[in-house]
């Protein structure tokens, strides 16, 4: 009797909770299973599915992997649907964690009918089974479990930052020890095949009291559809140096927002984005003539109008007094 009540109660609780996840989004690893020999670097995608009529615009993802068994060779944001990154995909091998925080303006709303692909990838991780068995030794084949940590969450594109009901699905990979396998490195192959530079982008120059004590800073951000963005470099070029070839400019590795050294805004600002294969996209911006002095309407015009206005008012009143 107790057992039957327990089963019924359990079913009722399950039935009560499950509808909450009927509209859940899912972050999952694909492929969910696989068998790979040691020495082969294989790619694994982190993907996002939305619930019906749902748009997800940001996510914080933490994946745990067994670092003693599996080596994370590289993680790429190439062809990711996220275009804004708070934290680029990073491997923390000492903890066996891969994590990233990013999003896309307007949100991802699911697959469009007619789309030839899934178009829902967040990142690609390249793994390799760490153990390489010495010839003649007999060890049991390893298996590796990939799981999403509890901090993994996603937000709805609803203007309120609502945390979306989310389910996650990890993966399990096994090692093959029997047979002869060539050491295929899919990451190396992807780097060799990638001849396309990152996408074009615009450099922004702004200042704001909340950042850098109201000093001018530069913003830049782009994406790469192949092997992903590796890093950015910036150079501030005085007009006299513009005739020099690009590689002679004073390049510095940089992240956005970048506090400009030249606060007079006479130097040309050049930013180059590098993808993981080393392809470069160069953009330049000469701020002097085009950037407004602040985000607000031109302050100097405003002050001229103000001064003339005061003089005018005084004159009018004096004239009225006279007449």
């Amino acid at each position, binding site marked *: 009797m107790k057992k039957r009540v327990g089963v019924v109660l359990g079913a009722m609780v399950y039935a009560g909770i499950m509808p909450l996840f009927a509209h859940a989004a899912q972050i999952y690893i694909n492929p969910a299973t696989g068998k790979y020999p040691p020495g082969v670097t294989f790619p694994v995608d982190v993907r996002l599915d939305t619930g019906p009529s749902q748009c997800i615009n940001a996510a914080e993802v933490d994946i745990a992997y067994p670092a003693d068994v599996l080596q994370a060779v590289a993680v790429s944001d190439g062809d990711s649907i996220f275009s804004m990154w*708070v934290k680029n995909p990073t491997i923390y091998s000492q903890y066996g964690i891969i994590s990233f*925080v990013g999003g896309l303006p307007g*949100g991802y709303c699911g697959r469009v009918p007619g789309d030839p692909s899934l178009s829902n990838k967040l990142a690609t991780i390249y793994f390799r089974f760490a153990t390489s068995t010495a010839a003649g030794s007999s060890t049991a084949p390893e298996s590796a479990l990939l799981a999403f940590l509890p901090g993994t969450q996603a937000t709805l594109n609803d203007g309120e930052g609502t945390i979306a009901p989310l389910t996650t699905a990890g993966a399990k990979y096994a090692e093959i020890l029997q047979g002869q396998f060539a050491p295929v490195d899919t990451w190396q192959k992807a780097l060799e095949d990638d001849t396309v530079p990152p996408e074009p982008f615009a450099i922004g120059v702004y200042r704001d009291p909340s950042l850098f004590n109201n000093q001018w800073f530069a913003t830049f951000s782009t994406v790469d559809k192949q092997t992903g963005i590796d890093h950015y470099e910036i150079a501030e070029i005085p007009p006299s140096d513009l005739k020099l070839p690009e590689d002679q400019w004073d390049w510095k590795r940089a992240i956005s927002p970048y506090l400009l050294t030249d606060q007079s805004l006479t130097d040309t600002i050049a930013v180059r984005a590098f993808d993981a294969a080393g392809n470069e996209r160069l953009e330049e911006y000469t701020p002097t003539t085009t950037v407004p002095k602040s985000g607000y309407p031109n302050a100097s015009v405003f002050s001229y109008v103000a001064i003339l206005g005061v003089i005018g008012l005084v004159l009018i009143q004096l004239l009225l007094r006279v007449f």
Partner: protein
Amino acid sequence: MIRRVFLRTIIIFSVAAAAAALFLFASPAAPVRAQSYATTTVTISVCGDGIVQAPTEVCDTGTNTGQYSTSSANRQCMPGCRAWAPYCGDGILQPQYGEQCDAGAMNGVAGSGCSATCQITSLAPLPGPGPAPAPSFGYSPGSYTAPNPTTVIIQGQAYPGASVNILQDGQTIGVVQADSNANFYFSTTNISPGVYTFGIWAQDATGLKSIALTTTFTVTADAATTISGELLPPTISIDKRQVAKGGTVTVSGESVPSSTIEVHVHSGGNIIVTTTTNSMGGWAVPVDTSVLQNDAYHTVDADFITTENGALLRSTISQAVPFYVGSGTPSKKLLADLNGDGKVNLADFSILLYYWGTSNPTADLNGDGIVDLPDLSILLYYWTG
């Protein structure tokens, strides 16, 4: 006298400056926000992938060379996938390709007078070595057929004469003008294959901005990917932000001419008011607030319904415009515009990034004491590019 002149000048100048400041710095009527759910009207057809996607495509052989073929089995598709290229068997006499006749499906059928290779059978020599085959135009050795450039085409409906902004992965790549029927068309070949998120928003004739419609899809190499059915929701504004209970607020905006607008007033239950846009795309409805709860905020939004090929299509819902019923002083400023320049873009994201993990009040958009994922989400929702 001088002192009085001085004081009067100060007063008039202060009033004028305040009025100028209000005029210059007032935020736009409605903030640009992104959709909250997916639209089901958007479809993609890829001309060049070898898959026929009706109704936009009539054929798709992959290469789509548009060249003449000697049989219907080998027939090519025209570039653009809207029609078949000429072939022997299409029922059209094409002497320029060596055809003597073309009886369509009857080619090669005894008694039709036309052979399977589009030659008049009564002229054919008696059985022996067959007639010389018609020259084949499907392949000319030595010529190079250039691959189709990777192209993206976006089409849909906004408002008559509206400026339609196209964003690619958050960056503005083009502005096109909608015609008098609110149809817009955008195309670019300046794109490499991959997964992209395109955002579309429009500004109507009165300056009101729509929400941004986003669509994520894969752009196929050497093919033209066409996205159709991007129906932008109506623009919407309200004549009063605050009204005493029993008064009337007028909700108005623009959409596709001669279409049905459904206006929803959200307040506990849902009140739906229907109207039709005029020939210029304008619409307006009065909302009677006597049935609404007093001393409370309510919101109103709208979508439009149109028919295509007999099917009813509904656009996504517009942004929700809030209004207050009762007495009291509501105020709403443009959220997520952290640097106050009237746009929500990389500059504001940079500020949010800088204060990530801190309790900075400017960047803490939801006011929960920490700058974290929900604040990023709110900023991305209001993104204008």
